[in-house]
């Protein structure tokens, strides 16, 4: 680990302003991802701005919807009575991630901004365009069983690991932020993360220094909600594939470098397609990276089953 300066933020706007001053600054909240990456020297911040004590941990009514503070922990959100009653997809997604110990520390904003679990990203001895733009991608041609099947590029085939983001996608949530100049904005969840393209080191649409302050969740859509995640181990394991369903909305997890709103499948269903056909429509553009071919069939089956459940 490299030496760094540490400071405790006293306001969200102040934190954003401070972060914008130093290119190599990072916000620290739960620390469940950042600290690991710092120990491995994948993250090498010169300035760590601790936002963890800012008053942003609440889960509150927001009109007919909900506002989840950036610092609300996964455990707290999953246990919230309104979340459990009105947004079961959200609770299920959160509880399918990490371990109880991590969920007690991991925050909502940190969850959305966590970095990929691609093993080649984690092994600093390997080329990775996320870590070092232009270095190449060791996952391509490597042991890439977990790699993306949708939206990958020749520069990066990693996936985004957040379950929360997938659930928020089918809930049409938006991410609230404060910018270094003190202004605020709301970013639709599907616009927060970028696909890799030729610049996989640019992971979100946030501006330098911009701080996530919360997530606005509109009233729940009519109909059933469900979150299904397939993993090698019963708990505390990276997902192979995940599917979120809320009403007539569908999103996929672990298949791309962002939560993947399955708009093609939604359109097919709206046009009267059967679940399997809707899944096929979404996966028409899916591609294997070598060792992850099974993920296409697995996604197809999981989507089909999730949508059939909905009809039953």
């Amino acid at each position: 680990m490299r030496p760094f300066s540490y400071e405790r933020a006293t306001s969200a706007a102040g934190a954003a302003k401070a972060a914008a001053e130093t290119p190599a600054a990072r916000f620290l909240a739960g620390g469940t991802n950042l600290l690991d990456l710092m120990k491995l020297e994948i993250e090498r911040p010169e300035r760590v701005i601790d936002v963890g004590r800012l008053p942003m941990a609440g889960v509150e009514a927001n009109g007919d919807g909900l506002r989840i503070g950036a610092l609300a922990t996964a455990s707290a959100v999953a246990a919230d009575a309104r979340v459990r009653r009105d947004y079961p997809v959200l609770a299920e997604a959160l509880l399918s991630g990490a371990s109880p110990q991590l969920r007690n520390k991991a925050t909502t904003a940190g969850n959305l901004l966590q970095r990929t679990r691609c093993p080649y990203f984690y092994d600093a001895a390997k080329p990775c365009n996320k870590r070092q733009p232009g270095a190449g991608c060791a996952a391509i041609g490597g042991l890439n069983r977990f790699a993306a099947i949708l939206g990958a590029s020749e520069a990066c085939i990693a996936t985004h690991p957040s379950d929360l983001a997938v659930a928020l996608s089918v809930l049409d949530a938006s991410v609230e932020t404060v910018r270094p100049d003190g202004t605020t904005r709301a970013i639709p969840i599907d616009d927060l993360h970028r696909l890799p393209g030729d610049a996989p080191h640019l992971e979100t649409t946030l501006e330098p220094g911009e701080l996530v302050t919360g997530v606005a969740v509109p009233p729940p859509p009519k109909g059933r909600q469900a979150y299904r995640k397939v993993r090698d181990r019963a708990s505390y394991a990276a997902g192979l594939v995940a599917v979120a369903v809320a009403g007539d909305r569908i999103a996929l997890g672990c298949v791309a470098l962002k939560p993947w709103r399955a708009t093609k499948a939604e359109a097919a269903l709206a046009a009267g397609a059967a679940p399997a056909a809707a899944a096929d429509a979404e996966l028409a553009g899916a591609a294997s990276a070598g060792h992850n071919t099974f993920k296409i069939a697995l996604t197809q089956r999981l989507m089909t089953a999730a949508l059939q459940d909905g009809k039953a």
Partner: protein
Amino acid sequence: MPSLSLDDYAAPNPISQNRQGIIGRAVDRYEGPLKVTGTAPYAYEVETPSPPAYGVVVGAEIGCGVVTAVDDAAALAAPGVKLVWHALRRPENQPERGARSYVGSQAGAKPVFAEPNVRFFGQPVAFVCADTLEHADAAASLIKITYEETPAAFAFDPAQAEPVDGTSAIGDFERAFADAPVKLDETWSTPIENHCQMEPCATTAWWEDGTVTVHTSVQMIKPPQHLLSETLQIPRDHVHLLSRYIGGGFGGKGSTYEDLELAAMSSREIDQPVKIALTRTQMFNATVHRPATVQRVRLGATADGRLTAFALEAATHCAREAPFVERAANFSRALYAAPNRLTGHTLHKLDIAVASAMRAPGEASGMLSLECAMDELANRLGLDPIELRIRNEADVHPETGAPHSCRQLVDCMTDGAKRFGWGKRNPKPAATREGEWFVGMGMAAAIRGNFLLPAKAGIRVEADGKVIVRQGMTDIGTGSYTIIAQITAETMGVPLEQVVVEIGDSGFAPTPGSGGQFGAASAGSAVYEGGMEMRKTLAAMAAADPASPLFGAAVDEIDFRDGLITASNKSETLGALVSRRAPSGVDVVGESMPIMESRAFSQHAYGAHFAEVGVNAVTGEVRLRRMLGAFACGRILNAKTARSQITGGMIWGVGSVLTEQNAVDPRYGSLINQDLGSYLAPVHADIVNLDAYFLPEVDDKANPLGIKGVGEVGICGAGAAVANAVYNACGARVRDYPITPDKVLPFLPAL
């Protein structure tokens, strides 16, 4: 005189008489509360006599080549740095490397950074010592190493594996197999596995008057003491090596790593205590692993299920310089009867990290092929898998003809089947379904060799009657402390509370340590012999002491019970005698050694595993629903720690077929999984309902205690029972472990 014959083993003794009932009791582990409350100092946590410096090891970022340049200027100038070593700046006056002193070995001197060669990815190539861990870590990241890569073999290829000694051919396998009316010829593969001990390898070392005190985390005490003596070029008794509390070994700490010699050498160099711990990444990359195997099993049988031809041929790999064979076929020589047999191994030398022992080396991998092959054969024959095994039960050792010391393999299968509810199993695959889940049952046999190695034990009785055992034994979480106390208390006829056990110290009587499930029998027998020696010593002392109520008693009529030395209604306490006759305490050394008569018997621990799994019909996820193991392991010293050893092994067996795997990236020679988030050992949610029990048994051919090892037999065959249950559940025969959803998917019905 120690036990020297089978008659000695079989004669009544304090352990078999068990008058206090301490043997077999579920005594809590002595060090358990210390470990869970953080008050057991692990090697890295031991307090040093003066403030320590901290060492950080830097691993190679290539798989094979040579260090050609090291830029260490920034590291040397970094805050707090006391010392930087690497291949081009190494400690002076080191001895030559011992002939067999490859990574992990402890034979001969192991000078640090003695050569510029990189032999595997992650191999330690530089070392920084600084006043704080943070400074050492920061400085280590400033070292820039230039390598020249050389051609290497990273990918395990069974076709390139070469035969190793020890093939066993009996009868005419090829002909019998060709003639067999029912045949099976299938190949299984098992992946690389990592030990994943909770406590990483770590050492704290300091020097006083030319003697080095080294606290480290190892399974055996003597070999690392010898290694340090050779490497540091000092007499053995100038190396005081301790390993008192250990957070898991599993075979991986049967070797030692650079933390050991670097801590001792750098501490001497800077004249200050030094602490070094390997990182979790280094535990994966720079220690040892269980190698992958590819195993071909051929079975030939009569139509009524009698094996006529049997072959298990296993290919595996090792590091180029460190010959180690995962002998996946050996166990099978002792398991089933068949007149024509062929078993052997081939080995592919690679430029990757060192392959070495992991819990039940050989059996743990090998039983995953044969015990599934038997299941497949039973299926082809239309026989229950238990019945097939019973029909091929071996009355004597199938290859040597040696009689069994005792063998309750069939009893384990039949009794376990009853308890588990095996009769409810539908032999037809994919016939039982609960909602989205296929449900199935599987079973497998368990076998693991039993061993007794020479060991000693120091026994001391103090003036207050306290009985102190001092032994160069280790407790790697198995319960050694506790069973040593139980054996001592029952042998000496004193309450458990009167016994103090001190182990993990090179100054104490030597034992072979923990490994190969020989620890309890070897160290325990020496403790028993020492206790018996102490009884004789104290009895003679009392009989000869006019002040003793036992004065004049016949020595062989003096008994030890209820905390007293007694003879015909007269008695006194141990403390009364010792405080009077030998106020500074009485010391004896007990010694135990294997006897030839015992070796004439085939000795194994046996068991049978029963598993019920669910297989998700949509996703191919396999989840264990329940599991039961029935075991016969001789006399049980401690019902709690023995059961824990077995269930821990079973859980690892579940992991080895469902989740655990590592793989070498053939482009780089590095492991793909380098942390506990990606290397998937089972978590609580994977296990849920798992239990084991023991059949009553005493093995009076094994040792004077009548016990057999329980540390490894639990993993043997456990995974095969799960794999067979997967087949029974959904019809998927996945022979390439682990059975992850991607491999089950092709067998599942369309939605």
